[in-house]
């Protein structure tokens, strides 16, 4: 009783302290850079360490261009899209927006963003069409018009804890498995309970695991889409009219992810498990994450290394996205010219390499080619996988709405609340209704 009382009192005392505990140097939400008369208001969702790199670049830009100042606002992505909607309705959007390529069709279909074809070499401008991958180039377009300037490729990959591998007698530089069975075998060796048993042992205590091999809850949506394509499936039929997540490929893909938790016991259920925190604390051997993990990983007391994403299906594939610059259709005059200068500066090969310091893979192939393997191993490993077998989001005006319908279904499966078939059938029905409504 005394212990309980002490604990409760301590808890009550700690709460206000927790409130006042602040990150000493957070990324500035609003950064005023430069003092030039021409001001560019710029919104982006780079709320992680990539935002720090972006602001460093902007600070350099305004030194090189003293007549321009930049007001950079970092807003978490979900909030950014909600605020953008209100800003466009109010007729007061920012001068420059960084968003994901998957959002291009939606904003392009509303007619609120500028056709940027004239900035590409093919349209008489300066952006080198040939210096980005075909898939990146395609990602900038909607119905034959170019709306964006790509900043980077960012996507999925793994980070492994080298010490965990070596403790299990595994070579961290081994060839990655190319089958589900191979990955399961690897994960089983990397999962340990408090008594040092792994899931192949009869004595394994799943309620007392001190080291998980994998965390399915990091971003189930991207990982499911990756596995779906690896099994030869797709989210939508080729003609774009039918949702096909509940195909045989979809069921197989999600079943494998589900089985990592409930059959092979190499991953905890999705909800309530903080994969980043667990990796940082040495409780997770392999974290499915992305290019953006680089700078966080460098701050950890963990001996880590980047791998490409898992391959459970017949052929490799991995999801990636593109941070894309868009300009509101209403922007004109000197401010437009200033924004164009900023975009040209950002698209310079040297500055693209600087952007690689954020962890993301520069959009320009020429910049990717000169990345130093010593300093940018993760960018190179993952970037190569995007170029070789990466896929972008399904291109439609309702992609985010489709994802919003699918996400809770995947979460339900990975938390044991629904069967794979029920979840995919329910999700497919909801998504089909969205797709039908959009036509």
């Amino acid at each position, binding site marked *: 009783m005394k*212990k*309980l009382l002490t*604990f409760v009192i301590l*808890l009550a005392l*700690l*709460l*206000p302290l*927790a*409130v006042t505990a602040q990150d000493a140097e957070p990324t500035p939400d609003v950064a005023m850079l430069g003092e030039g008369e021409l001001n560019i208001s710029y919104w982006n969702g780079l709320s992680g360490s990539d935002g720090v790199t972006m602001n460093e670049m902007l600070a350099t830009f305004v030194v090189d261009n003293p007549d321009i100042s930049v007001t950079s606002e970092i807003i978490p992505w*979900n909030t950014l*899209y*909600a605020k953008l*909607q*209100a800003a*466009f*309705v109010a007729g007061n959007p920012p001068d420059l927006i960084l968003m994901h390529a998957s959002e291009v069709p*939606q*904003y392009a*279909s*509303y*007619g*609120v963003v500028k056709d940027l074809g004239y900035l590409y070499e093919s349209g008489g401008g300066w952006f080198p069409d040939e210096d980005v991958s075909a898939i990146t180039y395609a990602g900038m377009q909607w119905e034959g018009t170019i709306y964006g300037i790509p900043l980077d490729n960012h996507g999925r990959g793994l980070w492994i804890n080298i010490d965990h591998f070596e403790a299990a007698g595994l070579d961290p530089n081994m060839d990655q498995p190319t089958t589900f069975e191979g990955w399961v075998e690897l994960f089983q060796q990397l999962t340990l309970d408090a008594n040092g048993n792994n899931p192949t042992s009869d004595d394994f205590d799943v*309620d*007392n695991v001190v080291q998980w091999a994998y965390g399915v809850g990091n971003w189930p949506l991207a990982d499911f889409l990756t596995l779906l394509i690896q099994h030869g499936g797709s989210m939508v039929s080729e003609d774009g009219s039918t949702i096909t997540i509940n195909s045989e490929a979809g069921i197989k893909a999600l079943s494998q992810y589900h089985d990592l938790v409930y059959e092979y016991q190499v991953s905890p*259920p*999705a*909800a*309530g*498990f*903080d994969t980043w*925190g*667990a990796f940082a*604390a040495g*409780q997770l051997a392999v974290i499915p994450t992305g290019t953006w993990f680089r700078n966080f990983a460098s701050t950890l007391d963990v001996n880590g290394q980047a791998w490409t994403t898992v391959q459970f299906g017949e052929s490799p594939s991995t999801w990636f996205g593109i941070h894309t610059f868009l300009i509101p259709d209403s922007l004109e005059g000197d401010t437009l010219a200033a924004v164009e200068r900023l975009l040209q500066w950002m698209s310079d090969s040297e500055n693209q390499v600087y952007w690689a310091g954020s962890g993301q893979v520069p959009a320009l192939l020429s910049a990717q080619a000169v990345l130093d393997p010593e300093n940018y191993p993760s960018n190179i490993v993952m970037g190569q996988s995007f170029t070789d077998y990466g896929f972008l989001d399904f291109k439609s005006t*309702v992609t*985010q*709405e489709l994802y*919003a319908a699918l996400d*809770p*279904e995947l*979460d*339900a499966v990975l*938390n044991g*609340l*629904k069967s794979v078939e029920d979840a995919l059938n329910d999700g497919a029905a*909801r998504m089909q209704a969205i797709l039908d409504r959009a036509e």
Partner: protein
Amino acid sequence: MTGASARPGAGPDWRPAWLPEINLKRREEIAAWLFLTPFLIFFAVFIGRAMFAAVQMSFYDWHALRPSRPFVSFENYEELLRDDVFWFALKNTIVFTAMTVAGTTVVALAAALAVTQPVRQANFFRVLLYMPSLFSVGAVGLIWVWLLNSQFGVINYGLSFFGIRPVNWLGDPALVLPALSLTTIWWAFGFPMLIFIAGLQGIPEHLYEAARIDGANGRQLFFNITLPLLRPTILFVTVTGVIGHFQVYGQPFIMTNGGPGRSSYTVIFYFYHTAWASFRMGYGAAVAVALAVIMAVVTVVQFLVISRRVEY
């Protein structure tokens, strides 16, 4: 006397000849309307107009940025009736509201009783207990996400001293709503506590004295005097609590993102996703209007049930 006749209302001399004679009742009515006017203007411009716009919007296929907004009559409401996510979110909202209103009322009343005892530094404790109410929902959500974290949380760490294995507070569908409710009770009991303190101070002391003389013990005093005389206060606290907690959004948004699965979806959370993430303002408006109607019905029922036994 000059001074007396110059005072408004003291005599007929101050009234200009063109102003008709107004009796006292009428004058009080005019004064009341004048006092209410600023609020009524504010209400009409910022709330009434928005409410009207929301109802209007709910009859259109209204996307904020799409130029065409076709009139769809009751289609959004028909879709709402078939939308099992909405009904599931409504069920969650009702469960959350019931737990939170009950918990908040009990904790606030207990706290009010404690800080109205004749103890030293009572005001210090009042401030201390009210403090959580000053935090923003963002701060509260982040604090409790860490406290309830299944791997690194202080609560599970404390429980481990008693041999209790880590509890997945926010990841278990059976626990997630109680966990969100617990968070909200901690955050929100301060204001009803103040209301209860005011209510307790309004109970005449002589009633307690008379009861004590008749030999009543503390329990009898509470159940036969305090609680009955606090009914108007309880009605106010529960009605405002239901209205407030029915609109819960920040806690699931920050702490669980509606998960696991949709286990912590609430109506406003669903409304946000529909209107602001999927850009379906028309359907989102239908969700909001439906919630407003449901809340109005619940409030009326509360008044009918609780106020029957209230003596003002």
